[in-house]
């Protein structure tokens, strides 16, 4: 496959008077790995929510593999091939690890309630196929030993991995990862980099990644989009982004005097400390 996996043109969203996302456009070539960064409150997760249908964009257009999905219900968007993970992990805690991934296969399953009640041959075959696929995914993520455990009993890092596995079970064309490295230690983060690269290679998905850990973003992303106050302020390769003065300003505040910091406070936003220097 070639061409664009995801094309977003000028989507906007406001909550009351707050313009959370303004005129956001992005085009992801098939198989690419794009980073989406920005200070806290820049609107990154809102972009994900707009793409996946949790919120309806006020304006703009979202196309997935050529077909328009703007403002559709989330489950239809998932069916069309866009899947995601969540910033604050949203696993099905009481269910087993295996069932979490099996649920991801739901969208590709064909059998309905009546077939389930009658246990038709087709239904049995499909359940077997789903289990097989789910177990294979768990093996890829090194979770096969915990298949029967309750998802909420997994360690934090494994929960993040399980979310990715569950998202991949929906057979997405485009995968949105929302801060997969949050809460991981540096060892786990190294593993995560390899994992994301592997996922892209083996599953052939296009990935859009929100991440605060610049080490991860700069290492694995081919291109990076920077968001601040709901607007795109920069786009380019990691090297370009690192040297872009606008990006540095967004992260550190205006660098000339204390007034810049004060203005940042007055506008109700904490100037982020750290930022690109982590890399």
């Amino acid at each position, binding site marked *: 496959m070639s061409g664009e996996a995801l094309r977003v043109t000028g989507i906007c969203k406001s909550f009351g008077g707050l313009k959370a996302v303004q005129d956001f456009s992005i085009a992801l070539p098939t198989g690419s790995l794009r980073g989406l960064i920005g200070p806290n409150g820049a609107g990154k997760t809102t972009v994900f929510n707009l793409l996946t249908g949790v919120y309806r964009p006020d304006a703009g257009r979202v196309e997935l593999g050529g077909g328009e999905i703007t403002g559709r*219900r989330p489950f239809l968007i998932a069916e069309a091939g866009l899947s995601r993970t969540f910033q604050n992990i949203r696993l*099905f805690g009481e*269910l087993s690890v295996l069932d979490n991934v099996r649920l*991801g296969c739901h969208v590709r399953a064909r059998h309905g309630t009546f077939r389930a009640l009658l246990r038709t041959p087709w239904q049995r*075959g499909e359940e077997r196929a789903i289990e097989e*696929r789910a177990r294979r995914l768990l093996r890829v993520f090194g979770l096969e030993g915990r298949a029967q455990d309750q998802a909420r009993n997994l360690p934090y890092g494994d929960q993040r991995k399980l979310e990715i596995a569950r998202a991949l079970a929906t057979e997405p064309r485009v995968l949105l990862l929302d801060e997969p490295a949050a809460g991981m230690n540096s060892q786990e983060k190294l593993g995560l980099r390899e994992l994301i690269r592997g996922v892209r290679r083996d599953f052939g998905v296009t990935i859009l990644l929100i991440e605060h850990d610049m080490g991860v973003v700069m290492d694995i992303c081919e291109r990076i989009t920077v968001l601040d106050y709901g607007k795109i302020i920069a786009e380019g390769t990691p090297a370009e982004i690192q040297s872009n003065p606008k990006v540095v300003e967004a992260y550190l505040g205006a660098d000339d005097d204390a007034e810049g910091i004060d203005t940042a406070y007055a506008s109700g936003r904490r100037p982020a400390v750290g930022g690109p220097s982590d890399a």
Partner: protein
Amino acid sequence: MASLPERSRELAPGAAGSALRSAAPALGGVALALVLHFFATPLIGDFYAKVLLDIGVNIVLAVSLTMVNGFTGQFSIGHAAFMMVGGYVSAMIVYYGSMLGYGSPDLQGGLISSTISGREAPFVTLADLMFAGSLVAGGLFAAACGYVVGLPSLRLKGDYLAIVTLGFGEIVRVLVQSQTGDVLYTVEEVRETPIWQLPTKVGGALGFSGLPFYSSLFWVFLVVSLTLLAAYRLKRSATGRAFLSIREDEIASEAMGVNTTKFKVSAFTISAFFAGVAGGLFAHTIGVTLNPGELGFQKSFDIIIMVVLGGLGSISGATIAAAIVTILPELLRNPEPLLRLWPALAGIGAVAAVAGLVMRARGRSGGLFFKAALAAGIAVALGFAARSAIDAGHDLGRYRMILFALALVLLMILRPQGLFGVHEIWERSMWRGLLHAVGGGGKGRA
């Protein structure tokens, strides 16, 4: 990797073997129902056979409510309304059907419907089929209502949905109570009344009396078996997983491609179907008058108690809880069999206490044993209290609702997921969880 449909076709078993395996549990259910019907009554006596009937009806109710409240986590407190709809539809069909077909509302069923021993009748008659059909019809009507009640669940969550289901139940109850006329008691009246007016002649506030008692152990436990089978197969299928995922996290579920709207409504519909069938069974149970006053939200609360005690989402839990909740009042009225267990309980408590002390002496916590000893002690104390209350002439059966209410509150504080949580009794994870809860997390997390 082959696509899921292709792989499914490869892995699908042969049709013949599959059909057999698909039908076998249902046939097993028929066999169980027959065995219970023909052998249980002589063995346990008429009184406990009736208790067994009630248990069966309550199991169907509790398991059907589990599909909504347990699986999808939508909280319905109007379940008795579905039961009422199914019960009235079924009762109307059987009563007026018998009137028109047989000229009398009496029981025309064969041996599988009769609860009287030594009655001469064929094994099964046309009237039995009418009864079975009326159950299905009642279920379908209730399912239609379930669909309608399910629709608000698209917009409402949690408490609000609960209150809407309750409001719906009350509306249905009041309508049946105040907008229906007296039951027609003679064949002439029935013949003269146009057939489309018969549904309004169901007794109003006085209840629908004079119904034949078709609900035998056979019918009740046939329905129990089929309900359990259906619930289990649902839970272990893509549909059931979709239900459970909605309960766990609706937003994530939708993001994973589950049409939450559709599944919530279908949970309500399926659940209402079985509640309707249970209502049909209930209406034709000996010693019952179908009365809207008794099928208000308090009946719904009774069913909720069963579901919650059993564990929201556990089919076996709901089954066991339904049995306990039904049988407990009888046991309270006549607790002799339980009271005989005292010495054994006291012994267990003493052994557990000693074991706990030994563990403590060896530097382990021994918390599990202390808790067991405490539980045994409480049980013994309760036994003494019951004994002296009975000797003082109290009827303990009157305290049943107090006990259930206390159990509900305590359970929510101590073990919020109910006895079994979402698990089934034969699953290892359930026992691990239960031991963990009882042991107070002595072992820590794995």
